[in-house]
């Protein structure tokens, strides 16, 4: 197992290098460069050729592309992600804040999603092809077919604009009106309801179908038949024999969703003006903030591959029948 993990980790390194070279190349060959982005931002348009050459040299933009890439790589490996061209703050610091904001939203969303999706999936499997199963199945299909930003807009339309029950966006009130800590909590919680509801509605379907399929598979296993033949009560067969085994694939699926948990959703965060990773990604692309784009891309790729590895490891840890050699 340890050998397997080490081998997989080693395989990740060339993969990430390739991803970084590709993304660096895309940025490099894109029209415009960081200097232009910066000067445009500050309304400086009359740089003399000497000044421009000096700044280019200062920023290392006059070096050949592979030198620029190696410099960037060296900094990255030493944990220096550079500075945002727009806000001049360290990229690591910006990303640190944004990740926290996204995690708040996505972890709450995930917990609620699982709390609804898993029992419904188990029940759907128990009463396979019943009216209940079919209704749930149609609802889940509709759920993951909705355009995320549209669902968000409709919820805002109904609950924030139409009824003014909930705030339409943002993460917290601009100033605290509540006096007590409890009041402040309730006040902030209102900002979470709509974005969390959006992600729960969109994600329930996938988890539910997954749990239903794994449960159906478990119910057809020999050990379930044996347990029934022994005369065990159906509830024990169902929960202790079938469900516990049907949870294994669900646990591994958590590994695959690691990257989406940290990266958040571009569209949902944009609609709700939620200052998370997804919105940072979109903003940095629109502003051509190259160091931020590179950092966000690399982070997503790292999370994606390590999430996949984590899923495989979790699978082996949770299920002793699985062996990697």
């Amino acid at each position, binding site marked *: 197992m340890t050998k397997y993990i080490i081998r997989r980790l080693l395989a990740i390194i060339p993969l990430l290098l390739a991803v970084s070279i590709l993304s660096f190349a895309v940025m490099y060959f894109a029209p415009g460069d960081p200097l232009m982005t910066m000067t445009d931002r500050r309304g400086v348009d009359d740089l003399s050729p000497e000044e421009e050459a000096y700044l280019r040299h200062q920023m290392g933009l006059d070096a050949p592309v592979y030198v620029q890439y190696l410099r960037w790589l060296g900094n990255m490996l030493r944990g220096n992600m550079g500075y945002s061209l727009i806000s001049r703050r360290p990229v690591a610091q910006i990303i640190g804040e944004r990740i926290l904001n996204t995690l708040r939203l996505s972890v709450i969303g995930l917990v609620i999603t699982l709390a609804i999706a898993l029992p419904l999936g188990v029940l759907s499997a128990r009463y396979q092809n019943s009216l209940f199963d079919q209704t749930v199945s149609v609802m889940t299909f*509709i759920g993951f*077919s909705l355009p995320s930003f549209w669902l968000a807009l409709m919820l805002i339309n109904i609950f924030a604009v139409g009824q003014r029950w909930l705030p339409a966006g943002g993460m917290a009130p601009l100033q605290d009106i509540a006096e007590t800590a409890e009041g402040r909590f309730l006040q902030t919680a209102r900002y979470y309801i709509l974005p969390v509801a959006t992600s729960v509605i969109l994600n329930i379907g996938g988890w539910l179908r997954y749990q239903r399929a794994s449960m159906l598979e478990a119910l057809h296993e020999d050990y379930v038949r044996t347990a029934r033949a022994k005369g065990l009560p159906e509830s024990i067969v169902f929960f202790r024999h079938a469900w516990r085994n049907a949870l294994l694939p669900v646990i591994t699926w958590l590994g695959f969703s690691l990257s989406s948990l940290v990266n958040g959703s*571009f569209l949902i965060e944009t609609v709700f003006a939620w200052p998370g990773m997804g919105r940072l990604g979109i903003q940095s692309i629109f502003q051509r903030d190259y160091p931020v784009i590179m950092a966000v891309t690399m982070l997503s*790729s790292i999370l994606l591959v390590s999430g996949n590895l984590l899923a495989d490891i979790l699978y082996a840890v949770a299920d002793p029948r699985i062996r990697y050699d």
Partner: protein
Amino acid sequence: MTDELESALPRVQQVSSMHRAKMPSQLAIARFMRHKVAVWGLFILTILIIAAVFAPVLAPYDPAAIDLSAGGEPTPPTFDHPFGTDNLGRDYFSRALYGARVSMAVGFVAMGIAIGTGTLIGAVAGYSGGLVDSLIMRFTDIMICFPSFFLILIVQTLLKPNILNVMAVIGLTGWMGPARLVRAEVLSVRERDYVLAATALGGSWARILFRHIVPNVLGSVIVAASLRVPSAILAESGLSFLGLGVQPPQASWGNMLQEARIYMGSAWWIVFFPGLLIALTVTSFNFVGDGLRDALDPQTLC
């Protein structure tokens, strides 16, 4: 005793002839028709596709005709304008019909690019094996590492946002899944006896691949294709919503929602109809895809 046998005989013959008459394709159709929701999805899709194809005939107004008599404000649905009008007084129903053409075209063309590329790459990798296979699959792994919507966004900001680029970019970021699927299927199919027979008979490399192997992995490719269209439609709508997709005055369901945020409280129809159409189309495609999976790939039935 003999009577019983004789009376049973025609029944047996009837049953066996029924079985003989059923081709695999007929069985597949029968299985699909049993999936009621999938049939409904197909029905709704047919209507939507007909509406998209005949948009110029069906649209009551010119989708780009501007009418500022309402003072630059959207007007609510009436008998004349079933979906209301937008802020420029353009008939929203006509725009939605023309938007259907654009959204469907993007969905189908992007699917074609993704599935075509993926099938070709996966088939070549799976059939050649060895170094070619590992090179191709490593490249696929790298491409999968990019968060796809992010990649689409980056490329779209660098390219001119127009309908052709949208199709190309969505298509070219979606081939990795189909490629892996086809490769896995080809790996199993190429070990079958009929492939061995074809090789023994001296069939050429290309003939064996495209005549014997590809047709046998077609089932899963069709299922993948039917699920790729709705995801491309969703990607287009997201891109257009951010202003990086199909550009106005050409209508797409996504760019109709671009200005929706401004009119959220005052004009619900601006937000409601385009999104409803996207949701309806995507749901129908997903149902049809599910039905096709049951019909073409009975192993996954459970």
